Every structure is written in C-alpha cells, then in structure tokens.
C-alpha cells in the first residue's frame, strides 16, 4: 500500500495532520495571540520580516502572521469537516438511490445536478452571504447544498458500474431486499470513491470560503482569505504579508487534493501510457544483383516493450514480392500477421517498438532512411487498406478531403486537379455518384462504400505496393467478394504488388500467387500458393487445410477449428511454437527450434514435415 501511494501522498497526509494539530491545540502551544498588536508592546515591528524568532513575521498592525495562519485554519477546517460530512452523507444517499433505482428519480436528479454543477456558485454565494448575516450555520447550509451534487454524481456513477456486476444480481435472486443490498453491498463499495472525493470536496470548501473571505463577505474573525485580502494592499513593499497566508492555503489545498488523488488511484489505477518510440537495430542486408523485388523483407523482427513484458509479434520474418505479384499472409488472430504490415510502414499505436532486420520497398530502406525519404515512399509507393472500414476513415473530415490529401501532400497536384483525379479514382473503385460522395462524411456511407473509399485513397498516388490487412473481414459476405475482385482487378491493371493479410484460406487460394503461413510471429511455411495447397509440409498448414471442409467453397470463417490456442507472444516457449497443438509432436520439437527446410521456392520450418512422414508420427 505504502509503495503504491507514493511519498507525496504521505507528505500531504503529514501536512494535513500538522495543520489540524496546530489548529486544535493552538491554545496550549506557545503561539502568540493572533489579534494582539505586538508593535505597541515593541515585541514585533509592523511588517517585520520572517525570522528565526518570528517564523512568518508580522503584518501591517504588527500582528504575528504565524499565529494568524494557525487561527485561520480553524474556520477552514471546521467548515470543511462539517460540510463534507453533511454533503457527503446526503449526496451519497441520493447517488446510491439514483444509481440503483434509476427511472424517473434518476432523470430528475441528473437534471438538477447538471444545472447546479454548472451555475456560477460564487454569484449565488455572494448573494446569500449578503442576504443572510454570514454565520457558520448559514455557511454550512449553503456549502452543503452546493456540495451535494458533486457527491451524488460520483456515487451514482460508482453504483451504476456496481449494479451491473454479478453479485448484486446474485443476492437479488437470493431474495435480499433492495434496502439490504444498498446497505450491505453497495455502500461499502462506493466508500472508497466517496472518501477520495471527500478530500477533494474538502479542498473545494476551503477555496469557496476563501473566495468569499477575499471579497470580505465571509465569517467574522480571522480566515485565510481575509488575511490574503488585507495583505494584498502591501504586496509591493511587504509581500510576505499576503504571500505567506497564500502559500499556507495553497499547500493545504494541494495536500487535500493529493490525498484524494492518491485514494482514487487505489480504485482506478493511474494509466500507464508509454511514449511512442521507434528504435531500429541490426544492419541492413544488401540486396543481390538483379533483384527487382518491390518488397523485400529479410529477418525482420519487431519487439514491443509493453508494461506486461516484451512482446515479439514478428520474429525473423523474411518475405519477398516481385512487381505485380500477390502475396498472401495467413494466420490466426494474434499471430502477428497485421504487425508485419505495420512494421513495413512503421505505424504503431502508442508503444515502444524496436525493429531489426531489413525492409525495402522499391529499393528504399524503410527502417533506416531519412524521415523525408521514407515518408515520400510511404506516400507515393505504398497504399494501405485496413481491416475495418468503419474506423479507417476520419469521422470528422469529408471524404473528398481525405482522398485528395495524399495527392496534394506528395503528388504536388493543385486542389482542383486533385479533385478531378479523386473523382476518377472513386469511379474506378466502383462508387456511383462519386461527385456527391466527395462531399459526404464517412458516416453517411455504407461499410462497403467506405472500404472502396479507403482503397481509392490507397491508390491515389499510383503505388507500386498495396498492403491490404484483412480488407473484407468486417464486411457483409455479399460485399466481401466484390471488394476482393476489385482489389484483384486493380492489381492486374496497374501491375501493383499486393500483400493480402487474411485468416481465410479460400481468399488466399483465389487471389494470391504466393503465400506465407504465420504462426506465433514466425513464418512457418512459405511458397507458391498452388504448390502449398497441393503439397503442404508444416503440420500447422496441414491442420489449417484440414479445418476447411471444402476449399472450393468460400468459407470465410475464423480459423478456430484447430484445438487449443496459440502460445503467448510474451516469452514464447522454446522449440517449435506449434508443439502444444501439433498431432505429430515429438520430444525433439519441444527442445530444438525447427530449422528452415525445403527449397528456395517452397520452404518450411518443421522437424517432421508431411512429405517425409505422411502418416502421423506417433
């Protein structure tokens, strides 16, 4: 506990304890009289600066500022405690009832809370404190009324979340009365959020009272706000008179906020967002003479440094794509196939990423080139289509703006020319009424239409390489085929290379020349599509094929028919990663990493490939 709350939390607690202690035991401590004008008796000069003997110095009337600061803590603390108690109790009750019973009560409550939280509270406070003689009682009532909505809102939220949870339902079915549920289960579980907010609410009371006191509308007697208000007149020559009570007040409010925040972090842990960092390791593998591959990946490894540990979703992957060719990458979800594409373009979510190996697109080193060079390649030579068309387009920008943007940024076209071209593109990808589509926002289009728009954007600068990440899996079955045919046609027309990531073997069979089978971050089998379908070698590939009843029928189903789940990518097991699920597994598989075998054309990493051991090894 101590460790999680941090040192600042405990310093804050200490400060609060100190302030409370001084305020309570002021009379029995050797502290000067806060109202005595010490200048008269010569004990302290007017505006005496802070010193060892008089810690905080003296004010304009020669009164001891330390004593006044301690005295000023009293109304702040009394008001804070009483108001927090009253508002907290009533607000919690209102919130629990509202969150649990819901219905009309909740609607009315929420409306009132929303209005009252928004209204200028200080204006109301000013009016009230002028209308009624400012007394502790009036203040307690008004501040409590103002405080209730805050608590009610917090508690309502917590209750809502709780009411969803099972155990409330469970005890309800066991015949517990509603009142008992509220008392036994809901209250204890909202206690921590309320306690956390109580500290913050406490600080708010101090601030509000201070504001009124500053305007001279608060309680009689000494308060921090009043000290600051009086002291500010001397800020030029004697700043300590106002700065000291200001700082005491600031530190106290800060301490309450810190404690409240610390308690909240016990309920809802602080977010751990990592910065997006891209590291590159290793040296590039030089390209051999006469290699004109549009995409060349050699020994690419991608590591993500996550709070949960080091993840390696791409492990020593090597692939190559000739111009105009289509390459399929197949794997289950979580196999790292999408990460291969992301590693090519270098676009990751917020994470600390290290890439090693070689990635070349049309001869440009994507890992080590200068930023402008790799960005230029991204913009002009690579087009990308992602899985979910619903999230692939920016919801607040017009389709037209999104289509023409890459042309203006990279193609140096004028806006008008880019628009002309955007129209053509939309027609090419089969969008009727392209003119109107340009003016529309993504939410006005169907999923299939949006995917066509993403494809149009990807094609904008005539790329040599199209990266398609499960371009159809989020679409209707009827639309899936249309989109695939469209991509295939565009590829042939333009002589683009295409990488098609999918979990669907039927798609691979119909639309690719080569295929890479990916398992747990590694390419386990790689070769011409026809060859692999006719003659699968790796046991995982075999299992995949067997899981498809009829390859001639598009199945479009998730690859879940193989028993078991792929291993965790955090600290994967040694040996063959498929061993846990492999029907042909031997002891050797679990200890030794399989070595790449087969030919240059068709390779696989399996100790007991299908061709050498056609029957299942026992």
């Amino acid at each position, binding site marked *: 506990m101590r460790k999680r709350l941090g040192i600042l939390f405990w310093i804050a607690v200490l400060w609060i304890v100190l302030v409370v202690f001084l305020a309570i035991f002021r009379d029995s401590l050797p502290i000067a009289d806060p109202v005595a004008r010490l200048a008269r008796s010569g004990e302290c000069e007017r505006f005496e600066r802070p010193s060892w003997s008089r810690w905080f110095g003296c004010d304009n009337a020669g009164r001891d500022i330390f004593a006044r600061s301690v005295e000023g803590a009293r109304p702040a603390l009394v008001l804070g405690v009483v108001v927090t108690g009253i508002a907290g109790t009533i607000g919690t009750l209102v919130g629990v009832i509202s969150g649990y019973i819901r219905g009309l009560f909740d609607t009315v409550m929420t409306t009132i809370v929303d209005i009252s939280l928004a209204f200028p509270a200080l204006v109301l406070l000013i009016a009230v404190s*002028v209308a009624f003689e400012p007394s502790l009682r009036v203040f307690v009532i008004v501040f409590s009324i103002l405080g209730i909505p805050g608590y009610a809102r917090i508690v309502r939220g917590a209750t809502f979340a709780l009411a969803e949870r099972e155990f409330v339902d469970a005890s309800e079915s066991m015949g517990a009365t509603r009142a008992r549920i509220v008392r036994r289960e809901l209250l204890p579980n909202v206690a921590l959020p309320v306690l956390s907010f109580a500290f913050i609410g406490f600080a708010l009371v101090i601030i509000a009272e201070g504001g009124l006191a*500053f305007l001279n509308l608060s309680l009689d007697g000494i308060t921090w706000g009043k000290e600051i208000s009086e002291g500010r007149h001397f800020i030029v020559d004697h700043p300590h008179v106002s700065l000291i009570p200001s700082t005491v007040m600031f530190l106290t409010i800060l301490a309450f906020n810190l404690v409240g925040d610390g308690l909240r972090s016990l309920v809802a842990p602080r977010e751990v967002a990592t910065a997006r960092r891209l590291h590159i390791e290793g040296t590039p593998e030089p390209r051999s003479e006469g290699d004109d591959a549009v995409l060349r990946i050699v020994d690419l490894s991608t590591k993500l440094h996550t709070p949960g540990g080091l993840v390696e979703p791409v492990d020593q992957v090597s692939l190559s794509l000739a111009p105009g060719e289509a390459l399929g990458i197949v794997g289950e979800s979580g196999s790292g196939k999408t990460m291969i594409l992301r590693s090519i373009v270098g676009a990751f979510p917020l994470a600390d990423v290290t890439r090693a190996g070689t990635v070349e697109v049309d001869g440009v080193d994507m890992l080590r080139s200068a930023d402008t060079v790799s960005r230029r*390649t991204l913009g002009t030579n690579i087009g990308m289509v992602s899985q979910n068309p619903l999230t692939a*387009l920016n919801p607040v920008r017009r389709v037209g703006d999104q289509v023409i943007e890459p042309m203006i940024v990279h193609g140096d076209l004028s806006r008008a020319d880019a628009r002309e071209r955007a129209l053509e593109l939309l027609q090419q990808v089969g969008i009727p009424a392209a003119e109107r589509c340009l003016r529309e926002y993504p939410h006005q289009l169907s999923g299939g239409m949006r995917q066509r728009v993403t494809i149009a954007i990807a094609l904008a600068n005539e790329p040599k390489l199209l990266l398609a990440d499960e371009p159809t899996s989020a679409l209707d079955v009827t639309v899936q085929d249309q989109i695939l045919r469209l991509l295939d046609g565009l590829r042939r027309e333009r002589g683009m290379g295409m990488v098609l990531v999918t979990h669907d073997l039927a798609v691979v069979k119909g639309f690719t020349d080569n295929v890479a089978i990916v398992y747990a971050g590694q390419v386990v089998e790689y070769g011409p599509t026809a060859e692999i379908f006719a003659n699968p070698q790796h046991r995982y590939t075999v299992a995949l094929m067997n899981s498809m009843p009829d390859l001639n029928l598009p199945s479009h189903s998730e690859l879940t028919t193989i028993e078991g789940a792929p291993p965790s990518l955090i600290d994967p097991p040694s040996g063959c990663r498929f061993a846990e699920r492999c029907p042909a597994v031997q002891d050797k598989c679990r200890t030794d990493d399989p070595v790449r075998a087969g030919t240059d054309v068709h390779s696989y990493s399996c100790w007991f490939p299908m061709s050498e051991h056609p029957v299942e090894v026992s």
Partner: protein
Amino acid sequence: MAFLRRLGRLVLVVFVVTFFTFYILDRIPGDPAERLAGVSATPEGIEELREELGLSGSLPERYGSWVGDIVRGDLGDSLIYDGISAWDRIRGALPKTLETLVLAELMAFGLAVPLAIRSAQRPGGLVDRWSSATAFGLLALPSFVLGIYLMFLFAVILGWFPVLSKDLPGFTDDPVGNLKGYFLPSLTLALNLLAVYVRLLRTDLIETLQQDYVMLAQARGLSTRRVMWRHVLRPSSLNTVTAAGLNVGGLIGGAFIVEVLFAYQGMGRVFIESIIGKDYFVVASMVTIIAVGYVMINFLVDILYSVLDPRIRRLSA
C-alpha cells in the same frame, strides 16, 4: 422545435434566477428609499420616493412591474447613484469583464492545445510529466492565491505589468496599455482553465492516436505535425469544448475575484457594491445578463459541437 425548447428553457432560467434575486434582495437589511431620502425626510416623503422608484407593493408586484419595464427595454434606475440608470452602471463594467474572459479563454486554449499535443505525443515524457504536475498544482490554486503570486512575480519583481489594473485605456485608444493591464487578471483565470483543458485534451488525444485512421494517416507518409493538427485534434476536442462551456460559471466567479484583486471596476465589483447597497434594479439586471450570457454560451457550445463532429449534425437535424 429544438430551438424553441431551448428558448423556453432560457426564459425559464432567467425568470427563476431573477425572481430569486428579488427575494434575496428583499431580505437584505436596510431600506434604499430611506437612505436616498436622507435623514431629514418625512415618512410621507419616503413613501412617495418609494412609489417613484418602483419599490412599493409586495414582492411579486415589484417583480412584475420590473419585468414589464425590462420588456420595454428599461432596466430601471440605480438606487445608490442619483440619476444613473442600471444600464449606465452595467455599460461601464461589462466590457471590462468580457475582455478579461475572452482573453482568458484565448490564453487558455492557446497554451493548452500545443501542450496537450506535445504531452500526447510522448506520454510519460518530459513535457507530459511537467505539464500534468503543473496542472495538478494549478488546480490547487484558488484564483485569488494564484493572482497574488502572478502579481508578485510579474508586476512587483519583474515589473512587466502594472500591479493594479485601474483606469485602463480603452482598447482602441491604446491597445498595448490596455492589454498589459488585462494581462495578469486574464492569465490568472487562464491558468486555472488551462489545467482543466490540458488534462482532458491530452486524454482524448491519446485515445484518438490509437485509432485506425490515425495509423493509416501515418502510413500515408504525412508528417507528424499534419497528422496531429489535421487528423487527431478535431475528433479529440469535443470533451474539452464541453468543459469550456461548463466552466463558464466558475469563470464568472473567478472574474469577480480578479477584479477585486486587480482593482478594476468590472461586473463583479459593481455587483458586490450594488448588492450591499441593495441596488435592486442594477443587481437584477446584472443577474439577468449573466444568466442570459451563460445560457447563450452553452448554446454556442452546442453549435460548435455539431460543427466539430458531423455525426452529431445528423442526429440533431
């Protein structure tokens, strides 16, 4: 239809708030008519004056006649200052407060957006850690404390700005002098807002940064700056805009305080002076203006909302 309902709500809010104001004012001890008439006045004289000022009759009666006057465009007369109307009192003060508020919002957004963007680009980085620690500290600084600090630092020690903002030249006469005078009060308010905006915007930016369309924008070779400003900022701004609307209430309260601290005659000081002097019509008119302004600003926020997010446009259409 939605517009009419909103208008209805506006009228209702103003009605409730002003009536409440009359009620409160009624409770304040002291009789403005007696005071205006002076010590030598006869009871009949006072009664006559009360009649003349619109202070006789029951509370609902007085309220009713005031509402009637308002509809005719007459806010009533000041009861403290002879021959000065409520509008005269407000006319001097309103622009000062408005300028403070507008400057504060400009500064707050001007600082919050780049800071939040830097923080979101490198969560846990130097800028992020400092800005969130600063935001936490700022949230613990009531405006009068923060104002004292700023006054001490920028006016007393550095001498860049005047300590007090009394008798400032008009903006059109001397823009530099005018802005210099309003700088510290506005900054005081802005820093409190800044803390709120940076926190919200940063969180939403980070969330948007994880979106597919941002990843795709990066994959299209767009510069980080372009991605941030053109693709990420707008979809992330909704909560911050809402907060700006909701914070107007607190901001008005804050403006009252900085006016007192920096000693210029804005709405806040006139309000307090009038309420203490039981200056009925001035107070009620000011409350009306604040309430109308408040509701209007939130109305504007709603409109801005649908400009920022076209999906909402369709829902409300």
